[in-house]
């Protein structure tokens, strides 16, 4: 299991160090080994797992802070990384951004958290909802707690529903669903789709009283087809609109065995915001934009680039925050750009022409042309021609996913599904949206 956990700043100074097991040797040795071999290493990090003198170091980096877990045993590596991410989430939930300043300001709190969520190197309950009930920044709570409160805390921390405490009350029961998708594309210069997939998340923000039992439904092909067996009419209607989900994963509140057997998504949600599910689709993706590049080398010192983008969705919808990034060679000396719409600029520091358009309606087309002057070089190596990448945001789900319902039942309290105010929003963003040129 995890033998120790260290947090460093970018210089390699230790901000937090907690040793769980003696086998990792003296604190000093382990701490220094990582600093010398990884943080101060000359070349780029070649692996997130480093073995130094039979000791393994796992690290993740958040802005310029390094988190390293150390072990001498054959630990579950996936678990260690999941834990490190969780650790970051927990810290962020307590004091916001993970920065040197914040870590120094909260070091007592961090030690307290580390003592709680990692015992002898074994991760324990690390749900912020539960942790915040008894680890607070004010610290002193123990005296004021009644016996009931105390046992409520412990039963929540160890309980089956460790992510929600009992007795939550809202005057107004309300919930928000965000379907956030990122659409990824790799296209050949000839317009052939090399790979495309949507990775989506359903984020729920709930303000519900009691212990509400929720059921979430979407236009999952498997569910629709199963239901449609009875009424042929409905199948033909909804058949087109249903989507094939390649795979999905759920927050730990979702009853997985029920999903496996009935494909129904039921859960008792944590209070506040959480990520209900993640999913991935690859079929029938609506690609919101098509990029058509044309690069011509004119002699050895000049490049002509023309890029056309076409929007491919309902004309009534508007895409926002459109940005096209056209890479330029390292030996670029000057660029002249002409674009029909938006603003384009050559950014020498980023070796790219960045073309920004604020808004663009569906079924439209726009174009940019640029002349790139090159310095003559005797560098034998050809320019690698990185792909043209694109960013955007559209108000629909490129996968075609639709939320059909989210039912709420709370038998013990006197509010019904109809009393809950529900909101749904769809946002499609570009993931890695690249066209080779």
């Amino acid at each position: 299991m995890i033998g120790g956990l260290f947090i460093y700043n970018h210089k390699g100074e230790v901000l937090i160090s907690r040793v769980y097991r003696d086998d990792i040797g003296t604190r000093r040795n382990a701490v220094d080994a990582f600093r010398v071999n990884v943080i101060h290493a000359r070349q780029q990090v070649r692996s997130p797992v480093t073995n130094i003198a039979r000791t393994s170091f796992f690290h993740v980096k958040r802005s310029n802070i390094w988190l390293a877990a150390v072990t001498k045993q054959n630990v579950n590596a996936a678990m260690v990384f999941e834990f490190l991410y969780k650790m970051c989430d927990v810290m962020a939930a307590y004091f916001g951004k993970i920065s040197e300043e914040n870590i120094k300001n909260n070091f007592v709190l961090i030690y307290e958290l580390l003592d709680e969520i990692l015992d002898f190197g074994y991760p324990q309950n690390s749900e912020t909802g539960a942790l915040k009930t008894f680890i607070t920044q004010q610290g002193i709570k123990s005296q004021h707690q009644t016996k009931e409160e105390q046992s409520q805390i412990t039963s929540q921390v160890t309980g089956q529903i460790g992510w929600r405490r009992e007795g939550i009350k809202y005057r107004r029961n309300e919930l928000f669903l965000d379907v956030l998708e990122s659409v990824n594309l790799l296209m050949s210069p000839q317009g052939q789709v090399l790979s495309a997939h949507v990775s989506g998340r359903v984020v729920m923000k709930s303000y519900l009283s009691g212990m509400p039992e929720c059921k979430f439904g979407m236009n999952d092909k498997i569910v629709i087809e199963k239901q449609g067996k009875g009424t042929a009419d409905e199948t033909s209607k909804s058949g087109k609109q249903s989507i094939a989900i390649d795979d999905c994963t759920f927050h730990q509140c979702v009853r997985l065995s029920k999903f496996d057997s009935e494909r129904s998504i039921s859960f008792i949600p944590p209070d506040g915001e959480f990520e209900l599910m993640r999913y991935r689709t690859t079929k029938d993706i609506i690609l919101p934009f098509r990029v058509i590049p044309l690069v011509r080398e004119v002699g050895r010192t000049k490049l002509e680039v023309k890029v056309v983008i076409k929007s491919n969705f309902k004309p009534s919808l508007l895409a926002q925050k459109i940005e096209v990034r056209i890479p330029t060679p390292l030996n670029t000396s000057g660029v002249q750009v002409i674009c029909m719409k938006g603003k384009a600029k050559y950014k020498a520091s980023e070796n790219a022409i960045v073309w920004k358009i604020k808004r663009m309606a569906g079924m439209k087309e726009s174009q940019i042309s640029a002349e790139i002057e090159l310095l003559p070089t005797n560098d034998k190596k050809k320019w690698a021609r990185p792909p043209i990448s694109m960013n955007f945001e559209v108000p629909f789900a490129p996968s075609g996913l639709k939320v059909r319902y989210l039912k709420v039942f709370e038998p013990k309290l006197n509010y019904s599904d109809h009393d809950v105010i529900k909101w749904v929003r769809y946002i499609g963003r570009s993931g890695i949206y690249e066209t080779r040129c």
Partner: protein
Amino acid sequence: MTDSKYFTTTKKGEIFELKAELNSDKKEKKKEAVKKVIASMTVGKDVSALFPDVVNCMQTDNLELKKLVYLYLMNYAKSQPDMAIMAVNTFVKDCEDPNPLIRALAVRTMGCIRVDKITEYLCEPLRKCLKDEDPYVRKTAAVCVAKLHDINAQLVEDQGFLDTLKDLISDSNPMVVANAVAALSEIAESHPSSNLLDLNPQSINKLLTALNECTEWGQIFILDCLANYTPKDDREAQSICERVTPRLSHANSAVVLSAVKVLMKFMEMLSKDLDYYGTLLKKLAPPLVTLLSAEPELQYVALRNINLIVQKRPEILKHEMKVFFVKYNDPIYVKLEKLDIMIRLASQANIAQVLAELKEYATEVDVDFVRKAVRAIGRCAIKVEQSAERCVSTLLDLIQTKVNYVVQEAIVVIKDIFRKYPNKYESVIATLCENLDSLDEPEARAAMIWIVGEYAERIDNADELLESFLEGFHDESTQVQLQLLTAIVKLFLKKPTETQELVQQVLSLATQDSDNPDLRDRGYIYWRLLSTDPVAAKEVVLAEKPLISEETDLIEPTLLDELICYIGTLASVYHKPPSAFVEGGRGVVHKSLPPRTASSESTESPETAPAGAPSGEQPDVIPTQGDLLGDLLNLDLGPPVSGPPLATSSVQMGAVDLLGGGLDSLMGDEPEGIGGPNFVAPPATTVPANLGASMGSGLSDLFDLTSGVGTLSGSYVAPKAVWLPAMKAKGLEISGTFTRQVGSISMDLQLTNKALQVMTDFAIQFNRNSFGLAPAAPLQVHAPLSPNQTVEISLPLNTVGSVMKMEPLNNLQVAVKNNIDVFYFSTLYPLHILFVEDGKMDRQMFLATWKDIPNENEAQFQIRDCPLNAEAVSSRLQSSNIFTVAKRNVEGQDMLYQSLKLTNGIWVLAELRIQPGNPSFTVRVPAPALPAPGCLPPSSGQPFLPSLLPRLGVSSDGVRSSPARLEPLGTWHE
């Protein structure tokens, strides 16, 4: 409130100031001071001097302050054990506190204070906490048992905590169950023999129920524990799989990977005809692909595991090639792993796409990545024959880019393509030769030289090209030197007239001016070959080479199976078994996939082979330099064997001789087995693959019955053989043999005078040899030996002479002197004369040692035509001091476990499998791990014994005791 100020105090006299503050009456000031102390501790300052003052702050109702003091205690208690006792009272009191959070905190902290005196006081509170009414305290106490076990295992057993812990597996609270499972699993690891976890269908059922209810981390503990269970049949395996599959949809990647591990392992037991088997295969692909959308670090872990899964069951992901395409912004470690998997998944169906991608990658920036991409193109050519032509033309395009490392890499892979498709693409040689000057890496130079040598007859200026390399011969790396030597010899054999001078030059460079024994040996072999029999030389050097197989870097199948059992863990990331990177007793337990149960079918074995390889036959794994497997076993695989496979290191030969040569002549009655004076050791050209065969043939002698010699009185004695023919010794003929009787070794000599004059003044001397054999008495020939007279002498020997490693190991060089001259001869003594009478190993020790020797080091061979039954074999072997330690009967076969001990204290273990009615025996000898390269310098005069010892996994004074494997070997009986 900001705490960062605590990090900034650096003034002198700080400790005194802190001391004052710690003893302050004001609570706030105290707390501030403790915070400062902790901050100093974090940045590495020594604040242990404040121990008593900090401990004084422990008695407080302020939970935050208490926690800080505890943190301090955990750090410094070990350095101040006596003062740590001061804290005990507070701990014991806190364990009784009405607040469960405080009770848990106390027991958690106490377990972290690794001071013996404290652990004694811990027992009572821990016992109470394990039965506490609050689950939070129980789950903390469960982990505390593991902590205590780590400090004092005996105490935990004596106090009966293990039983309490086992009871917690049935606890009503899922988190308590999960922590108990984690603690028990850890403790069980250090007691491989104990049946601590006691997994049975009932307890498995409990775990599976808890699996649905506990936290994500608890699910991981439980799944990892489940993976150690072996279901009793395929039905049970299926039902567990069905209950584990829902975990594949968990948001936590570690839960998913641990579930995958359980499924991959239990799938072994399912019949491929089952519908469920197909369903399961289909269910595995999507979650594996989803792992690739996780954060990069997790992607890396996932990809390393997918790499294993793809090798074990290629069918799972065969349609998912596209998801492994490299993204421009992927971190380099993700890119390299994806590339590796792409090559494994490449097939005729997707090769066009793959090649287009690879070509794209070859223009990227990162040098390692580009190299690997180029190499991948070559591997595609070898793997998918239809694409070879396209690959070659792609490689030629890349060579035209003139980017130095691209060109070198391309040449290395083209060499492999030549080996796979001889006489097909040689038209490109001219292009390759153009780039000769730009090659600066040894591997590329060696590859180019190989190509020139191999196709010397088609390259007009081959001699000039090779000569140009010769100038800086001594500055080249060994790899290049060896290759150059071979290439020039090839050239000479092909064009003898014009290259005589060149070949002489290289031979003298290799043999006279080089310190490298490998190079020297190879040089001498060529020299001897060329000078004695050029025709034979041609046959050897220009022999047709075996075609290389399509997979160059498959993980060796038994290692792969073991790694599958470690999915998700570090072992799967390193692609090494835990014993390779975990110190001490932990992790040396070898895991293996469960055998397929025969409930529904019986003829399954061919299907278990990976689909990538033809069934029934193991894929040839070509070791490349820096090959993982090589590193792992510390095998000296030597430079890549791209020429004739001559360069197997003598290290291997040594180990082999011990078994092969020794057992060889044990019972043999064929005179050549013992060796006349002209006996020549098998040349070093033997490749490891042939070893089985040569050993086997030797062993069959062992059991040969025809001579019935020596079955009753002591060990077997071979008939005398002529060691020194009269022609070579001016009329003295010496024949002899070796015997061992009741512990004493003797050399039985027969001296015949075939000369015309009387011989007198005999004396004998042995050269230093591997086992220190030396005459125990002078050679006494009482009367002068008249012409045509024969005298028989028994010369007692001992093993206290000086030691030097011989080639072969049992070679003995003897000098005999008489009044005429001194004569030298060498003979091979049968190894069994060195088998001592107390060679019967204790059974426990045997079991432990046997388990300790890695599976992959076992040698196995057959003894044919030996119609003995087990008893007869056993008694016959015993007469030669090879003892049966245990015997058992498995599926009608008799398994004999044998041990023997050599005079120098080395133990040899063997397993003998005898099928009644079948005259062939199977012998398994766990050839022990080889020493690290350089440990045993060949042909140096150093005593070899010390270096031989680690190789056998034993020490001279006995057997290293080590924990054995988990699964019991069945019933043992004598």
